[in-house]
């Protein structure tokens, strides 16, 4: 299982250990943190939900594609679901490889694809009490523009 969901804090130390191998000289990781603003609005907290049965399948396909495209050793992605506070880690990607260039490329490929393809939704709660499903509320009003910031 190279793509997983978790309802609790992501254990990056344990995840990183799964990527260790004596033949790897480079390790790149990405963490997505809950930030206090998005598109001009002050964010106070987030909720993530996923269609998990398809999500893990699509996530595994992305990791498999990364391992085929880039000569890396190991790759792993963990996405958190549920209610998250500011600074909480929403997603983690780690890649180990013999050389660093491929590790950067594969890590970036994985997070880009995960954000575009895995059925995960994010509801932002804003200062003042409003909330909204990212990429859904505005695209409902203006569908042709919406996919640009998906």
């Amino acid at each position, binding site marked *: 299982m190279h793509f997983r969901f978790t309802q609790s804090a992501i254990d990056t130390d344990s995840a990183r250990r799964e990527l260790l191998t004596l033949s790897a000289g480079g390790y790149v990781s990405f963490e997505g943190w809950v930030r206090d603003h998005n598109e001009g609005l002050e964010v106070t907290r987030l909720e*993530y939900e996923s269609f998990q049965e398809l999500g893990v399948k699509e996530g595994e396909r992305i990791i498999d594609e990364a391992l085929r495209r880039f000569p890396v050793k190991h790759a792993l992605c963990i996405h958190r679901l549920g209610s998250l506070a500011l600074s909480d880690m929403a997603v983690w990607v780690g890649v180990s490889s013999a050389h660093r260039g491929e590790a950067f490329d594969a890590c970036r490929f994985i997070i880009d694809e995960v954000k575009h393809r895995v059925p995960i*939704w994010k509801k932002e709660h804003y200062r003042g009490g409003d909330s909204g499903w990212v*990429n859904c509320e505005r695209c409902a009003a203006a569908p042709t523009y919406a996919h640009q910031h998906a």
Partner: protein
Amino acid sequence: MQLKIQYYALMREQAGRSEEILDTSAATPADLYGELLARYGFTLGREQLKVAVNNEFSDWSRPLAAGDAVVFIPPVAGG
């Protein structure tokens, strides 16, 4: 025939439920979405969605069979 529909995120909120068993004559996911759009007033148009049947992405024109599980997938926002 009976289909199982699961709703997520904005569509879950607009449908007021996360799943239901539906008696329908919809032949395809496209037909089914038209039926549900009329019932629940979803704000997302079909061109903004993807659809999954039995936990795998599907064409909108795939013939549906009794017992199929259908999920409409709003624009995603992981990470």
